[in-house]
C-alpha cells in the first residue's frame, strides 16, 4: 500500500473552521467523526495535524530521537484504537492526546529502567548528537551562527529539563511547552488545581536554577578550554 504524503486540500477544502493543515482548513469535529469511521484520509490528516507536537512531547520525556519517534507512533496507534472512547469536544482532544503520549513515555522509561538500570543516566547525560536533525523551530533567515546559538540554547534547555525531577518535567512539558491550561494539567496528573498552580511556579524556579548551574559549568569549561589552547 502506498502512503506517500499528499495534500489534503482537495479533500477538506469545503470545511469551515479553525484548523489549518497544508493550507487547508479542517473542522476538527468532522475530522474526528471521520477518524472514528476509520477513514484513512481523515486519519492521515489527523496524524499530520498532531505529529509534530506528540513527537516534541515524547522527545521532551526521552531525549532520544529514535525512541521519541517510536513512542509518538505508538501513541498514535493507541489513539486510533481508542478514538471511539473519546466522547469530548475538540477542545479536550489535545489534553487527551498528551495524556496518552505521556503514559506511553512513562511506560517506556520504566521499562528501560527495569531492563538497563544505567539507561536513565545515559539519557540525562545525552550529547548534542541526539538533537533532532529536522528542526522547524529554527529561523530560515537566520545566519549559521544564530542557528547554532539557538540550537545550543534549546539543547541546553532539554538538558536542564532532564536534570529536574519527574514532576517538574511533567509540569514544564505540559504547561509551559505544550501550553495546556492549569485545569487540564491537573486533570492529566490527577492533582488538585491549586496544587498544580503552586507546583508549576516551583518547577520553573527549579528549572531556572538548573539552567544557571549548567550555564556556569559551561562557562567554566569554556574558560578552561580557552586557557589550555
Amino acid at each position: 500500500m502506498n502512503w506517500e504524503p499528499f495534500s489534503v486540500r482537495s479533500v477538506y477544502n469545503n470545511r469551515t473552521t479553525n484548523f489549518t493543515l497544508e493550507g487547508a482548513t479542517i473542522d476538527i469535529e468532522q475530522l474526528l467523526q471521520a477518524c472514528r469511521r476509520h477513514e484513512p484520509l481523515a486519519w492521515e490528516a489527523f496524524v499530520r495535524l498532531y505529529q509534530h507536537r506528540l513527537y516534541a512531547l515524547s522527545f521532551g520525556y526521552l531525549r532520544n530521537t529514535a525512541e521519541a519517534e517510536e513512542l509518538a507512533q505508538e501513541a498514535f496507534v493507541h489513539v486510533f484504537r481508542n478514538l471511539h472512547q473519546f466522547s469530548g469536544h475538540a477542545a479536550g482532544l489535545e489534553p487527551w492526546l498528551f495524556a496518552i503520549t505521556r503514559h506511553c513515555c512513562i511506560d517506556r522509561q520504566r521499562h528501560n529502567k527495569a531492563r538497563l538500570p544505567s539507561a536513565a543516566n545515559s539519557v540525562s547525560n545525552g550529547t548534542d548528537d541526539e538533537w533532532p536533525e529536522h528542526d522547524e523551530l529554527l529561523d530560515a533567515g537566520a545566519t549559521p551562527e544564530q542557528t547554532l546559538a539557538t540550537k545550543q540554547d534549546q539543547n541546553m534547555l532539554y538538558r536542564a529539563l532532564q536534570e529536574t525531577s519527574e514532576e517538574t518535567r511533567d509540569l514544564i512539558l505540559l504547561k509551559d511547552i505544550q501550553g495546556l491550561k492549569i485545569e487540564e494539567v491537573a486533570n492529566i496528573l490527577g492533582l488538585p488545581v491549586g496544587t498544580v498552580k503552586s507546583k508549576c511556579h516551583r518547577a520553573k524556579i527549579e528549572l531556572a536554577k538548573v539552567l544557571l548551574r549548567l550555564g556556569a559549568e559551561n562557562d567554566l569549561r569554556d574558560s578552561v578550554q580557552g586557557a589550555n589552547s
Partner: protein
Amino acid sequence: MNHEQVPEHFTQQVLDTLQLDACRQAQALLDEHAHNLLPLLHAELIRQHLENCSDCRALHTAIVMLNARLPALQSLRVPQGFTASVMQRTVLQEVTRRHEQKPRRFVAWLMRPRFALESAYAMTVIVMLFSDLTGVNAFDTFDPALWERARPRFPESAMTFEHLSTQLSEQAEQQTEKMTTKYDDTARAIESWTREKYTAFREQYTALMR
C-alpha cells in the same frame, strides 16, 4: 542592652537570615513579576530587591529567558517517513482488529441480555419436559421393554408413531384429569373451611350485638 556587647558574627547571621528570607519571598514572585502580573507596590519591591541581589537577578533573567524560549519547543519536525510509518502501523492494527472481530462478535452475542432470557426459556421448557410438571412425562412413557413385549400383539401397521402419540395423549389427558380433580378437591376443602369459619364468626358477632 549595650550595642557594643553584641558579637559581630551574630549581627551578620541576622542580616544573612533577613536576606535569605527576602530572597525566598522575592523568588516566590519572580515568575509573576516576569509576566507583569504583580501589583505596582510588589513589583517595585521586587525591582529594588533585584537591584541589590545578584543571585535573584540571575534567576530572574533565567526565568524571563525560559518564558521566551519554552513555547518554541512546542513542536519538532518529525523525521522523514514518520506519517507513512504511523499509517502502516494503523493499517496493521485495523487488519488485526478485523481478524479478532469474529470471536468477539460471538462473545458479544453470548453476552447480550436477550440471550439470558432465551436460555432461561429453553431451560424451563427442558425441565418441564423431563419432569411431571405438565402432567406428561414424554420420555418416561416410552418403555422399550414394554414396547418389545407389546409388539407381537399388534399388527405391524399399528406400530406407528401415530398410534404411539395417541397413547401418549390419552395418558396425558388422564394425568391432567387427575391433577384437576386434586386441585378441585383442595379448592372445595378451602371453600368449606372458609364458610365454616365465616358462619362461626357471624354467629359470635350476632350474639355480641344482642
